[in-house]
């Protein structure tokens, strides 16, 4: 180790990290045989963000100038937003990068303590955009992984930036990427007794908000399909809560079958995208059902006088976690995806609801109510290692980032002027931060990583 005492200063483990770059591999550049040891191991102990530099990307066409600066900025914002990285401002730079292919002056970046350096080049031709980048481990004096190139549309330039940042994040942390993803949520305006709600979709960082419905009727809890092209949600369009499926591309929707005199809500897709699991209320009693989306044929999975709702599939589709008050209070249970006997998994103090199975399969996120406070938490599927990540007057409705590392949820503030805001938090409980949306937001649902 160097005199900087990296390990102590940053409480990070730097070790050799071999990369497998099968995706998006471009034909340019030469992969260095020597790979750097730059690595953040995300643990509870990580307290100091890793310093990095992202000089403005190199424009390789006349039209690319502004784009080159914007791309570098979004890459930096993505990395900073994780709480794991700290950007070294351009004003501190000793050398500038004026040629993407020129050798890096490691000493100049070492001198300003930039442990990671991201360089890039941009080519814009009409609405066609291509972005190249390289990641350097400054203190090893080597490139970390090989250069990559992404191509897309100039309109979708932010996605290119997210892809670059995803590659950097994944190489340094060893975690899966998640920046190139979207969130569908309920946009909220107005006071609590006249709250107007409409469905909105945005990039994970709050950019590019588009509205999918108007606010003429109450809409609740949109949920992405596994392929990210459709959304299930609950709407009062008919005067009663019913489940709709909406195609994001065409913004066309259709209502799922439901019998008169019933209410259906809390839908989620199965991992296959063919089946929806949901709650149906009849005669005041709420149970869990599945429905084949194409045929409309439904199957009842629970049959008790208790409230059974908020079902969520395991990533392999074999099991369902849900909440039930069959014990007297809301608790979490796991059952087979075909129904049958359920195992209670929550045994702590208070009430547990809105369970969501992690995309990695290892954890369930939930809302907990205890002693007048609300928490977002995670636990293992056997109920062990419960960890509360937040505490407030009202936090609810967690959703998982595609890599299973970050959770987004809604926080409602207290009293007459109360409003709802989206927040994200790392599953370690660190890096709690609001997600910027034009209006209030609730019921977020994170998409899978975009293709």
């Amino acid at each position, binding site marked *: 180790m160097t005199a900087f005492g990296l390990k102590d200063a940053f409480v990070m483990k730097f070790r050799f990290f071999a990369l497998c770059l099968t995706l998006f591999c471009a034909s340019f550049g030469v992969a260095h045989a020597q790979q750097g040891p730059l690595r953040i191991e995300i643990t509870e102990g990580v307290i100091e963000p890793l310093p990095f530099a992202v000089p403005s990307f190199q424009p390789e066409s006349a039209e690319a100038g502004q784009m080159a600066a914007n791309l570098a900025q979004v890459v930096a914002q993505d990395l900073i937003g994780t709480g794991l990285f700290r950007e070294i401002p351009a004003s501190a730079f000793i050398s500038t990068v004026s040629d993407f292919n020129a050798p890096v002056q490691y000493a100049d970046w070492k001198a300003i303590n930039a442990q990671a350096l991201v360089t890039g080049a941009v080519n814009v031709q009409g609405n066609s955009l291509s972005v190249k980048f390289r990641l350097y481990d400054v203190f090893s004096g080597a490139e970390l992984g090989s250069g990559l190139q992404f191509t897309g549309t100039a309109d979708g330039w932010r996605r290119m930036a997210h892809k670059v940042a995803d590659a950097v994040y994944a190489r340094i942390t060893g975690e899966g990427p998640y920046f190139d993803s979207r969130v569908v949520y309920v946009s909220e305006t107005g*006071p*609590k*007794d006249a*709250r107007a709600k409409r469905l909105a979709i945005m990039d994970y960082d709050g950019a590019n908000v588009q509205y999918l419905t108007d606010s003429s009727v*109450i809409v*609740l*809890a949109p949920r992405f399909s596994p392929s990210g092209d459709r959304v299930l949600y609950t709407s009062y369009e008919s*005067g*009663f*809560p019913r489940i709709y499926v909406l195609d994001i591309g065409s913004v066309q929707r259709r209502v799922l079958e439901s019998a008169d*005199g019933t*209410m259906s*809500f*809390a839908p989620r897709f199965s991992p296959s995208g063919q089946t929806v699991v949901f*709650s149906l*209320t009849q*005669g*005041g*009693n*709420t149970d869990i059902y599945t429905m084949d989306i194409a045929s409309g044929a439904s199957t009842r999975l629970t049959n008790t006088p208790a*409230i059974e*709702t*908020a079902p969520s599939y395991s990533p392999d589709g074999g099991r369902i976690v849900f*909440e039930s*008050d069959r014990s007297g209070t*809301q608790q979490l249970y796991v059952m087979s995806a075909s129904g049958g006997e359920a195992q209670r998994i929550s045994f702590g103090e208070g009430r547990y*609801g*809105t369970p969501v199975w992690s995309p990695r399969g290892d954890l369930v996120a939930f*809302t907990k*109510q205890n002693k*007048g406070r609300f928490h977002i938490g995670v636990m293992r599927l056997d109920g062990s290692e419960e960890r509360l990540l937040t505490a407030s*007057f*009202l936090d*609810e*409705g967690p959703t998982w980032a595609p890599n299973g590392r970050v959770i987004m949820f809604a926080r*409602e503030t*207290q*009293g*007459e002027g*109360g409003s709802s805001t989206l927040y994200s938090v790392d599953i370690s409980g660190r890096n709690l931060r609001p997600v910027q949306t034009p209006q209030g937001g609730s*019921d977020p649902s994170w998409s899978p990583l975009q293709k």
Partner: protein
Amino acid sequence: MKRILTSTILMAVLALTACTNPGRFGAGGDGAGANAPLGVAGGIIPGSANDPSSTAYFQQAVGDRVLFPVDQATLTPEGRATLDGQAGWLTNNTDYTAVIEGHADEQGTREYNLALGARRANAAQEYLISKGVPSNRLRVVSYGKERPIEICSNEACYAKNRRAVTVLAGGLSS
């Protein structure tokens, strides 16, 4: 007979109005002025709260809502008394149908509160049916915590938000 009953109820309404008006109109008035229009009219204004077959009468004199304790959907004695009045009114006013809206306070997760509101609406519906209101005139819907009427975050508001409200529809021939 029916007319006598109507008059009695009307007087009760006037009495109620007299009781509530001073507070409602604030410190400036003694209440007499506010009551004057009713006195001048001296009879039933169709559709107003003194018309016993009006929805306004149902809402104000009979009482269109019942309240529930925290996380409960069991009717209270007060709730049952209100629903007795609703059942009587619906029996006398057969051209009305109703949707019973169940609600919860904000202390709960969205999905659970939807289900809880449904339990409350259903409890009111079942009671009305048990008192002779035909089930085909009653529908239920739950709004969960989506439509509070009071917006403070303490028990005074929560108590009013945990409710089942009987909302009339129809009544075109009255």
